[in-house]
């Protein structure tokens, strides 16, 4: 079951410092919204708020018409929202296999068939402790697990950080394949090329606010890059 995800005038932060100051956006089924910006601009803070881990000081987040205020994070998966955080992306003490299946009722492998063919190393290292994987390998594990949830909406925070270019391409393929099946994504990234490959619309952030927004094709690379580079 798909649905529309919206957030409007979201204000949130830590203590009395508001990091996100009035951001808004929308994702329809089968679409990908890319969120771009240098670090420190509030991308991860926004994602935490959308995933329910940070209370909103103002604004609204809705999913399929339902206001998500007060819905605790652990209940959102059942509603169809999956979240992959930016850091601490795996359970370091558990094996790769446990990371992939601990939250599922059975250990069937069909769920991860596509992921295993794209990232064979995961299938090879099922018994290995996840904490001993490299940063990029952990991101791949997190990506495989999150996509394996086949949720209607998936929130990804910097999924390609530390990942090799050829695997980044495969990630892009898998995301587009899920979109074709009707799933939607919000993806935070600093990697412009990756966002260009997957996103339909983008939000560009700076200083806690949205400074550019719209369809990628219309905005153009130049307009976006100016907010990203040094």
């Amino acid at each position, binding site marked *: 079951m798909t649905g529309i995800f919206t957030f409007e005038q979201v204000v949130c932060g*830590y*203590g*009395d*410092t*508001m*990091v996100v100051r009035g951001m808004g956006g929308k994702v329809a089924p089968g679409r990908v919204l890319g969120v771009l910006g*240098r*670090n*420190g*601009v509030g991308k991860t803070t926004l994602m935490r708020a959308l995933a329910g881990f940070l209370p909103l000081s103002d604004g609204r987040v809705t999913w399929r018409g339902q206001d998500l205020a007060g819905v605790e994070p652990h209940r959102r998966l059942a509603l169809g929202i999956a979240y992959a955080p*930016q850091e601490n992306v795996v359970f*370091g003490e558990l094996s790769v296999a446990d990371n992939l299946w601990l939250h599922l009722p059975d250990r069937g492998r069909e769920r991860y068939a596509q992921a295993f063919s794209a990232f064979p190393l995961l299938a090879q290292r099922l018994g290995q402790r996840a*904490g*001993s994987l490299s*940063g990029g390998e952990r991101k791949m594990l997190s990506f495989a697990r999150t996509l394996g949830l086949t949720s209607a909406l998936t929130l990804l925070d*910097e999924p*390609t*950080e*530390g990942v*090799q*270019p050829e695997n980044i391409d495969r990630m892009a393929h898998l995301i587009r394949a899920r979109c074709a099946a009707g799933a939607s994504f919000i993806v935070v*990234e*600093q*990697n*412009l*090329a*990756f*966002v260009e490959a997957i996103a339909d619309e983008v939000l560009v952030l700076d*200083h806690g606010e949205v400074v550019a927004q719209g369809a990628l094709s219309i905005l153009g690379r130049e307009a976006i*890059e100016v907010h*990203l*580079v*040094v």
Partner: protein
Amino acid sequence: MASFRAAEAPVALALALAVLPFATNDFVAYQVALYLVYGIATQGVALCWGRLGFLPLGHALFFGLGAYRFGGTLKAGQSDAGWCLLLPLAIVIPAMLAYAVARLVFARSLKSGPYFSLITLAMTMLGSLAAQQWSEITGGFNGMGNIPELPGTDRYTTLYWVIAVCAVATTAGLTLLFTRPLGVLWSAVAQNEDRLQLFGYATDRIKAGAYALSAMLAALAGALFSVHQGIVTPQALGFVLSTEFVIWAAVGGKRSALGALLGAVLVGYASAELRDRFATWEVFVGLMFIAVVRFLPDGVAGLARRRLLPPGGQAPSTAPAATASTEPVRLAFEGVRSSCAGVKILDGLDLSLQGPGIRSVIGPNGAGKTSAFNVMTGRLPLVGGRILLDGFDIGGMSAWRVARRGVGRKLQIPSVFPALTVQQNLQIALWAGRLHHVMAVRSAPHRWHSALLDELLRDFPDLERQREVEAGQLSQGQRQALEFVMTVLPEPRLVLLDEPCAGLSPAETHHMIGMIKVAVDRIGAAALLIEHDISAVAALGGEVIVLHQGRRLAQGSLVQMQADPAVRAVYAGGHK
């Protein structure tokens, strides 16, 4: 909020105690004296818990040690008066034991607090076990009896005056200390020990010293107890009495010396009268304890909501000059590696700078910028490589030692002492490195100022205006400003600034950058500044160092960095 001078409480107490035997009778005075004695020990607990923020759960150990030693020495003194020379040891030895244990436990980690409480509890258990078993010395389960009177006093009449004088003295002494620089530092330890260490204060020693003082109070109380009761049993060492000290401090008010004393007298006396009449009295006390812990952290004294004023009136004086070296400062990172929980955070970082001036440090997430600061100030372990400051290897040194070598650090999240006023915050920074032992208990340092402080406050009029406001009430921008001023006040040679403009409006950012340039130039320091805001970096001028994945990627002017293809790639994504 009313405020009062340090002398009011002890004077009121002295008057009340002086009148008591005449208003009631000798027997009541005798009883009250016992609880005054307990109250002195309770003041020791209140000192550690209410002021410094760590909780001794086994304080009766020192009470009992003082009691047994004093009583035993007096008994021995009956046959050979020479023993009486050793009487002060009864109070000094517990203090030394306390200092040793506290130094060991606190030196290791900032988070030792709960473990410390358990250790004190275990020590008191050991004490009462020993007291029961070594019956030749202690009289075993039945206790050490037949303790003679304190020479020159009679237990049931004149001893009261000795005890009353002691109680007034301890109350006066503690209340006075709270107003001195040492007292301010004690409060600072409880509020933000991390920040205090970054100013060069050896907080484990401060805590150990306070614990020794509190042990001395408990031992003094124990000594008085032994002559008051004439007998000391293992109960005087046990955890039950230790818990009662904590309850009396909690109910009476752990932040106030007088409150703690009165807590013991009132609650203790009431308990003694009521516990035999009502079986549930003790349960009631237990419930009261939980309620106070949950809802009334400052006890009954806290309800009065008064704040101590430091002694005022005299003219301000200039702080002693900070020791300065004429050589230009040198910092070098050589192949520095650091990791945490198996993740490589710094992977062979090489960096060097020499001489004054501001250098900006930039880089994407996880580049290791804050981690480079952390590994310098002892927050991250140094796994490989070296860090040299002025040619001296500072790798692995604890935070306060590094600070004493002339390093100042401003943290990523503005970190001040929230329950102290702006003025007190500034003073703590001003005292850093300048406050030598005895000065910590004199009142003069309260009136120190320095030319640098005056200049900085001129440019931050908000802070000047709000000197008496508690730092926790300041806005984000004001707290950034306060922490910045505090960081440069000790006039460090190397200043580490971590996102000083985070959360500031563009106008505030502009102002802050201007102040940073002026201040760093004024103290002739070298500065490393982490920032995400590129316009701020541009306004600073100076060299820019780009970090990436735990290593230095490039270095040069901002224009050069903006043109460098490797830097552009890292920021816009793509090749890694």
